C-alpha cells in the first residue's frame, strides 16, 4: 500500500497540491483522473520521488520515501514519465535493458537477459528489438518505454499518461495488459489517464482530483457518477453502462 499523509506542494509560491492524504491499495489498478492542472501528475511525481516532498510523508509498502535510498526504491517501484524524448541513439533492446540496471548496476546476468527478452515479448517488440529508437513509430517507442518499466520487475508501476501516442487498439491492448498484470501477477499499478473511459473500463480504484485536492476516491462505480463527474470537469456528462462497466458519455 502507498500511504500519503498531509502532502502540500507548491511551485514558485503557487500551490499545486493542498494537504493530500490518501492511500493507494496494493494489488489493484488505480486510475488518477481529473481536469488539466488538477495536480495528478504532480502527485504521481512526488510518489515516484521525481519531485522532492515539501511537506508531509509518503510511505510505499512501509518504506518512508524520504528515508529510503533511491537505489532501493528502484527495486520497489518503476516509473514512466511523460515526455520521454531521448537524443541517444539506442536500440529498443538496449533501452529495455536499462530497466534491469537497478538489479545489476552494470554486470547483467543470464537472468537479467531473460527478463529483457520476456519484457520485449510481452509488449510485442521482439521483431523490433534491434531497431533504433528513432526508426520506430511513436507508439512503438512508447511501448518500448513501458517494456523498460516492466523489465524493472517491481511490485509497483507508476505510469504518467502511458496512453500518449497510442492509437485506440494499442491503448486498449495496453490497459487490458495492465489489468492482466494486476490480476495474474499481483502487480500494483497506478496510472494517470486523460480519457476517462479507460479508467471506467479497466480500473479497480479511482482517485478523482481537482484544483490540487482529492474530490472523490473509491471503486469506479462509486466515483464515476453523473453528479460527481459533472462537478469534476464542469461539463454535463451522462453515465451509462456497457458490459457491466460505467460508460461516460460527453459527446456534444
Amino acid at each position, binding site marked *: 500500500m502507498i500511504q500519503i499523509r498531509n502532502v502540500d506542494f507548491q511551485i514558485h509560491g503557487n500551490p499545486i497540491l493542498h494537504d493530500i492524504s490518501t492511500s493507494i491499495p496494493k494489488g489493484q489498478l488505480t486510475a488518477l483522473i481529473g481536469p488539466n492542472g488538477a495536480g495528478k501528475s504532480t502527485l504521481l511525481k512526488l510518489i515516484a520521488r521525481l519531485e522532492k516532498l515539501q511537506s508531509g510523508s509518503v510511505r510505499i509498502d512501509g518504506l518512508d520515501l524520504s528515508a529510503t535510498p533511491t537505489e532501493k526504491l528502484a527495486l520497489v517501484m518503476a*516509473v514512466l514519465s511523460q515526455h520521454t*524524448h531521448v537524443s541517444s541513439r*539506442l*536500440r529498443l533492446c538496449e533501452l529495455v535493458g*536499462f530497466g534491469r540496471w537497478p538489479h545489476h548496476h552494470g554486470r547483467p546476468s543470464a537472468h537479467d537477459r531473460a527478463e529483457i527478452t520476456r519484457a520485449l515479448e510481452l509488449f510485442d517488440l521482439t521483431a523490433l528489438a534491434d531497431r533504433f529508437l*528513432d526508426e520506430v513509430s511513436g507508439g512503438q517507442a512508447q511501448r518500448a518505454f513501458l517494456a523498460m518499466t516492466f523489465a524493472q520487475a517491481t511490485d509497483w508501476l507508476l505510469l504518467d499518461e502511458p496512453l500518449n501516442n497510442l492509437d485506440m487498439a494499442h491503448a486498449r491492448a495496453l490497459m487490458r495488459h495492465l489489468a492482466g498484470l494486476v490480476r495474474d501477477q499481483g502487480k500494483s499499478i497506478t496510472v494517470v489517464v486523460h480519457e476517462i473511459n479507460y479508467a471506467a473500463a479497466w480500473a479497480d480504484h479511482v482517485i478523482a482530483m481537482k484544483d490540487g485536492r482529492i474530490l472523490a476516491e473509491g471503486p469506479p462505480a462509486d466515483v464515476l457518477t453523473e453528479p460527481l463527474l459533472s462537478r469534476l470537469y464542469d461539463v454535463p456528462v451522462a453515465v451509462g453502462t456497457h458490459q457491466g462497466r460505467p460508460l461516460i458519455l460527453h459527446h456534444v
Partner: protein
Amino acid sequence: MIRPLPVMLAILLSLFVTSLTIGAAQVSLRAAGSDAWAALVLMESRLPRTLAVVLTGAALAVAGTVMQQIVRNKFVGPDTTGTSESAGLGLLLMTILAPDSPVWVRMLVASLTALAGSAAFILLIRRLPAREVMLVPVAGIILSGVIGAVVTFIAWRYDLVQYVGTWLAAGGSSGIIAGRYETLWVAGAAAIAAWFAADRFAILGLGDNVAKGLGLDPAPVMRLGLMVVSVVSALVVVTVGMIPFVGLVVPNIVSRIMGDDLRRSIPVVATAGAALVSACDIIGRLVIYPYEVPVGLIMGIVGSVIFLILLYRPTRPST
C-alpha cells in the same frame, strides 16, 4: 556484419606507423635498431608526438560523447561549450599571477576554470526554451566567443596575445617532444574513467526522470561527466592547443553506425577520434612539406564539413 572496433584499430595502427616515418628528417623504422641518431629522432620526437596526437584524439572524442550525454544534445562538444576557452583563461591567469608555479598546479587551475566554464554552460542551456535543440550548440559557441574575448582582452593588457594565440587558435603538435606531452596520459585516464561509468552516462542521457526512476541519482554522474570533460579539455589545450570538432563529429559518426550503447561504443569512439586526429596531423605535415600546417587548422576544415553533412543528412533512413 563488419565489427567496427577491429577495423578502426587497424586503421589507427597504420596511421600510427605512418606518423612515425614522416617528418623533416628522413628516418627509417628499421634503421632505428642500429642507427643511434635515428633512434633518438624516433624516441625523443616522433614517438612522443604521435602518442600525443593519439591521446588527444581519443580523449577529446570520449569527452565529446560524455558532453553529449550530459547535455542530451548531439550537436555539442567540449570545444563548443566554452570549456576549452575557460581552460585557456585559467592558464593565462596562472601565467600572469604565478608564473613560477609548477606545471601540475597550472594544469589543476586550468581544469578548475574549465569545470567552471562547463558548469556555466549547463546552467545556461537549462534556461533555454526546451525544444530549441539547435540553439544549444549556438549558445555554446557564443559563450566560447565571450570567454575568448575575455582571454584576448587580458592577454592584450599583458602583452601575451601571441602566447595565448597558440592555445586558442588552431592547435598544433609540431613542438611536442619527450617530456612535453606526458600529462596527456592523465587525459587518457579520464577517458578510461568515463568508459567505466558508461552505463551511468547512458542512463543520464535518457533524462533525469528516467535516471531517478531507475534509482540513479543524476547529480553525481553529471559531476563526474563535467570533471572528465574539463580535465581532458584543459590538458589538451595546455599541451597541444585547441583541436576543434573532434569531440563533436566523432561521437556522432560512431552513433550513426553503431548506436549509443556506450559500453560498446566508447572504445570505438576513442579509436576513431585518435585515427581522425592522426590523419589530420599527417595531412598537416605533408601538405606543405617540409613545413607544417597545425593539426587544429586541418581539423577546423575537415570537422566543419563533416558537421554540416551530419546536420543536413536526416537520421531516419526511412519510415
